[in-house]
């Protein structure tokens, strides 16, 4: 990291004013008791304490997004003949996500191999990803649902961030992670951090230490496959799940989507919108057959995808950043950590030979 800078709390607003002259700034704002990312304007009261309810997923992967618009036109000579025109019209703007937690910014590190290095490049994702930068706030204390240190991340993780801010002495130590981030630290509102940088490091180290011993989830990769056919196990761990989509929509790494045509007369849009593997319709085929007919099948896929299939395909990286939103905000407190641990410890009679 380049030379660390420091900005005091009272100058933070001015810095954001300055930055929002140059680009769209999304910052955490309280609505009800929820904290969500909203465009910053001078005077916006931002909330940097605690984990925002929503990660900044929408900055790069909007809840719904037009893939292209279509228009039908009748041939004036022959009204029975109709032609159609289609065209994309995305206009992403340069955006700074300010004040996400490291776990929120890390989400896109999980997206990237799929959306930009997979079978096909996703052009909508790519243009948004390239026009978005992240200034994240390191955590100095963890919540009960946090387990970032068990999935290769941590309270001061810089993966996915361009700047890392650490709250020190009624202000923030700001450290550039990338060149893009470095450019933003040129503002005269920031001063040299001096020995505050060391203090920031200590705080981050302490935060990590306070989390206790990390749990090693790597054996889950094999084990989840080994107990794939043990439906009793999956029914047991999914019993309390109510099959809503809160876990997936709040998840920084969940990237599944739906595509639907939404029409209004002769024109409309093909959109993609967040979808949710906990939903019955997600895999329901037109014939009525559903390969994942119950919540047990669906939860098995969600856990399997994050802790087994994705790591298998992407150099062992777990598709979970340990933010714990799925635990904290689950209406019935389903705990994905507990499921993975139970899977790893599960003694199965059928074992490796099960039901092939």
């Amino acid at each position: 990291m380049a030379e660390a800078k420091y900005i005091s709390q009272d100058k933070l607003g001015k810095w954001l004013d300055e930055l929002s002259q140059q680009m769209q700034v999304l910052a955490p704002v309280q609505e009800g008791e929820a904290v969500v990312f909203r465009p910053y304007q001078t005077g916006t009261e931002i909330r940097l304490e605690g984990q925002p309810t929503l990660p900044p997923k929408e900055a790069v992967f909007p809840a719904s997004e037009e893939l292209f618009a279509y228009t039908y036109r009748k041939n004036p000579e022959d009204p029975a003949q109709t032609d159609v025109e289609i065209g994309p019209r995305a206009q992403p703007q340069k955006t700074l996500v300010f004040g996400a937690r490291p776990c929120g910014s890390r989400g896109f590190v999980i997206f990237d191999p799929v959306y930009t290095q997979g079978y096909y490049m996703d052009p909508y994702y790519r243009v948004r990803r390239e026009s978005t930068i992240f200034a994240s706030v390191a955590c100095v204390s963890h919540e009960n649902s946090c387990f970032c240190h068990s999935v290769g991340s941590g309270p001061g993780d810089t993966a996915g961030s361009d700047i890392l801010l650490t709250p020190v002495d009624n202000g923030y130590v700001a450290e550039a992670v990338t060149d893009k981030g470095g450019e933003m630290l040129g503002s005269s509102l920031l001063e040299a951090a001096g020995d505050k940088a060391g203090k920031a490091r200590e705080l981050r180290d302490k935060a990590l230490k306070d989390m206790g011993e990390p749990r090693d989830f790597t054996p889950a990769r094999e084990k989840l496959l080994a107990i794939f056919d043990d439906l009793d196990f999956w029914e047991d761990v999914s019993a309390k799940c109510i099959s809503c989509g809160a876990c997936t929509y709040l998840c920084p790494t969940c990237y599944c989507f739906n595509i639907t045509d939404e029409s209004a007369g002769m024109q409309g849009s093909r959109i993609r919108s967040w979808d949710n593997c906990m939903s019955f319709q997600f895999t329901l085929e037109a014939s009525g057959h559903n390969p994942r007919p119950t919540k047990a099948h669906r939860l098995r896929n969600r856990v399997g995808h994050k802790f087994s299939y994705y790591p298998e395909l992407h150099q062992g990286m777990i598709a979970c950043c340990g933010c714990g939103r799925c635990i904290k905000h689950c209406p019935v407190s389903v705990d994905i950590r507990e499921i993975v641990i139970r899977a790893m410890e599960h003694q199965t009679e059928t074992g490796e030979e099960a039901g092939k």
Partner: protein
Amino acid sequence: MMDIQQYLTENNPYLPELGTIVETIQETHNIMTFRVVLDGDSRMQDFSFEPGQVGQLSVFGTGEATFVINSPPTRKEYLQFSVMRAGEVTTKLHSLTKGDRIGVRAPLGNYFPYESMKGKDILIVGGGIGMAPLRTLLLFMLDNRDDYGRIQLLYGARSPQDMAFSYELPDWLERKDLETVLTIDNEAEGWEHRVGLIPNVLLEMAPTPQNAIAVTCGPPIMIKFTLQALKKLGFEDNQIITTLEKRMKCGIGLCGRCNIGTSYVCVDGPVFSYEQLRALPNEL
């Protein structure tokens, strides 16, 4: 930064090509075939695909659904898709007629391993609409007839009226370089061919597994018993090839619904050997 509009127009796997339906054929009471020509002067000649690859057909305002391109790459005057009416998109497709505009995203997915099948005897077993992907392969092999050994076709449907591609069957039956067996589930007036369930007729045909590849496609229950019959006849897992169907949206390995464990049917499939299938988690 690049010009975004240009980039999205030129590098966009979600953006269908436009084409026109040049012919429709009512195959059965619920299967309709569409012959589609893509826009652009030399586009049909430039369009390249492999037998078994699929395409997503778009009815703008309704949506997309996946179908195999069932015309072979050796015959490119049009792309042929056969659509069984089942859901929202297929129902809408059935209302389209000649001259209607349509969107096509193709080719997508993998294809039949026709290279490694060269020099071998080929057994094709198709049931109902499952004949569509097999038609591509069959016509492709007939157009490259010298590359393959004996070719046997067993094609079954519930009744004569449920048999798609009826206009081609006389030719297939007549050809000397193809052994065609047709079967229906129950006796029907005027039916001159076999009567009986596909797996049973297959056992009677008793094709030999030596230096042979069996390719099968059809409804899940037929596949299940056909696999059992093939095993009984001595076919090994790696001698059996089939295609899978899943609900798909993006078709390009991103949207997340068609996976079986680490495999995405839209990009790693739809064609799988039985050996590959057995290595996947049991979630069909």
